[in-house]
């Protein structure tokens, strides 16, 4: 889930009596599953919350290029290099698509990038973890894109039209990434003992950070009630996390790898796996900027943006000259 811990801008869920006529009409639409479109009236808090959520999702796609890009120049075969390049290209495309969705809410891409660089917008905590061996690339596709899909499939039903459509389109590519990632880690798990060791190491390191992608437990998730009522959030954090664990444990077993958490056990009664909570203190540390890669990731992004200023300025200046020459010629 790339949108995580989104603070809902709201003073609490209003009862129907407390709502204005506009608010009531808006809520009725949502309750009847009619999509909200950019030109429709919407509460200011709904708009602001969505900008946060879609913007964070977009930033995650963009920052997410870095841990995967870390291995593009070391990919072990031409085919693996091509697959990884294609994936990272897709992720950048997702970023572009999501920024456009957010722009329909009255903010520009450049404004959102500035907010990110000032630390006033966030991206998913998962991308603050390093990719340390080649199996990590498989594990990222399988676990990270896999976790993202679970959230995003739910969000296909979200109330805001442009966001919902973005999720439908993006999910198709994410599923492809997850399959390719699993295939890549399969090669490692079924390979030489050294390859298998890398696969195990990747799963051990990335398991809990992947669980953290769904955000804190429902008991601690403030603000989600309003987002649920607005159908910006469709399923609870714990529900999504449980779905991920249930889907992923058999896949780890198929790889012949040890489970990364000794507490994982099938619970016949509940019909789900039991598992340990991630270390939430670590999670909040990462969110606050103290993850293993936070500083480097932001430094990289800011440098790219600042070093590229002359390019953006140059191309813009040229486009203006062109436009002026065209007008003069007419």
């Amino acid at each position: 889930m790339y949108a995580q811990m989104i603070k809902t801008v709201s003073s609490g869920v209003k009862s129907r009596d407390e709502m204005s006529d506009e608010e009531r009409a808006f809520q009725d639409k949502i309750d009847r599953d009619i999509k909200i479109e950019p030109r429709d009236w919407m509460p200011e808090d709904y708009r602001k919350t969505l900008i946060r959520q879609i913007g964070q999702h977009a930033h995650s796609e963009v920052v997410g290029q870095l841990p995967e890009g870390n291995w593009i120049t070391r990919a072990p075969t031409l085919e693996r290099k091509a697959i990884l390049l294609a994936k990272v290209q897709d992720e950048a495309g997702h970023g572009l698509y999501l920024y456009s969705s957010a722009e329909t809410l009255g903010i520009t891409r450049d404004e959102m990038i500035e907010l990110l660089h000032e630390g006033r917008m966030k991206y998913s905590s998962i991308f603050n973890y390093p990719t340390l061996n080649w199996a990590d690339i498989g594990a990222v596709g399988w676990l990270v894109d896999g976790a993202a899909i679970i959230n995003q499939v739910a969000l296909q039903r979200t109330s805001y039209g442009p966001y919902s459509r973005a999720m439908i389109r993006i999910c198709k590519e994410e599923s492809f990434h997850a399959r390719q990632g699993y295939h890549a880690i399969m090669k490692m798990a079924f390979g030489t003992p050294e390859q298998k060791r890398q696969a195990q190491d990747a799963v051990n390191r990335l398991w809990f950070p992947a669980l953290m992608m769904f955000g804190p437990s429902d008991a601690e998730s403030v603000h989600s009630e309003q987002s649920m009522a607005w159908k910006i959030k469709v399923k609870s954090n714990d529900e999504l996390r449980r779905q991920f664990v249930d889907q992923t444990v058999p896949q780890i077993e198929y790889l012949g790898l040890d489970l990364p958490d000794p507490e994982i056990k099938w619970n016949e009664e509940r019909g789900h796996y039991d598992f340990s909570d991630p270390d939430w203190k670590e999670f909040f540390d990462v969110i606050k900027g103290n993850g293993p890669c936070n500083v480097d990731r932001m430094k990289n992004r800011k440098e790219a943006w600042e070093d590229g200023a002359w390019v953006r300025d140059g191309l813009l200046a040229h486009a203006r000259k062109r436009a002026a020459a065209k007008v003069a010629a007419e």
Partner: protein
Amino acid sequence: MADVDKNNLLQFLLRMGDNTLILGHRVSEWCGHSPVLEEDIALANTALDMIGQTQMWLGYAAEVQGEGKTADDLAFLRDAWDFRNVLLVELPNGDFGQTLMRQFLYDAWSSIMLGRLVKSSDPRVAEIAAKASKEVAYHVERSADTVVGLGDGTEESHRRMQAALDYLYPYVGEMFESDEIDRAMAEAGIAPDPASLREEYDALVARVLDEATLTVPEGKYVHKGGRNGYMHTEHLGHLLCEMQWLQRAYPGCEW
């Protein structure tokens, strides 16, 4: 197809495949660091196309070599002296302007070369060229547009693009060098003599640079030694260190 010395054909294919491999690798170094999201996408796409072309060229090279090797063996298990790319493509990325100028200078050559190779007497070469030339037609259009936009942009972007051109231009000449391998290829109708592409290249480059308000440097000196492997730059070894590391550290694995 006329009878041709197998080794000459192999050398020709390595020249083609090593160019795309090394430049594709260089371009891929940009991932996530480019000036604007659209460029991240475009650079990844360019790198991806070039790696795809590498698979075709080096795949055929491995077949011609006939030692049971694969394109991956050629890419990941040769040392620098066996690489046959021109020096231009192994030069470091520099700033975005230098990367795009290098791309344009290469794309312009590549688009003309591939245009001839689609008529190659070797059907495999013709087939690869037909596929690649569609991609490269798009690459050259894009890199030319960017060179024009930045050359004729702001004062700073102009200055940077001129500096890039000054640095890179001495490496252009190597793409048009001819030796006995090229003569054998030309005689067999497999590939044109590179020297015969120069006129068309100069015209294309002059048109774009003129629009970009950039000046071709006066000096006639040509750096060479890549396409015959006589003397690569110091940069190639470092690139290979990174690119080949996994294959070297864990030999014989399936990935």
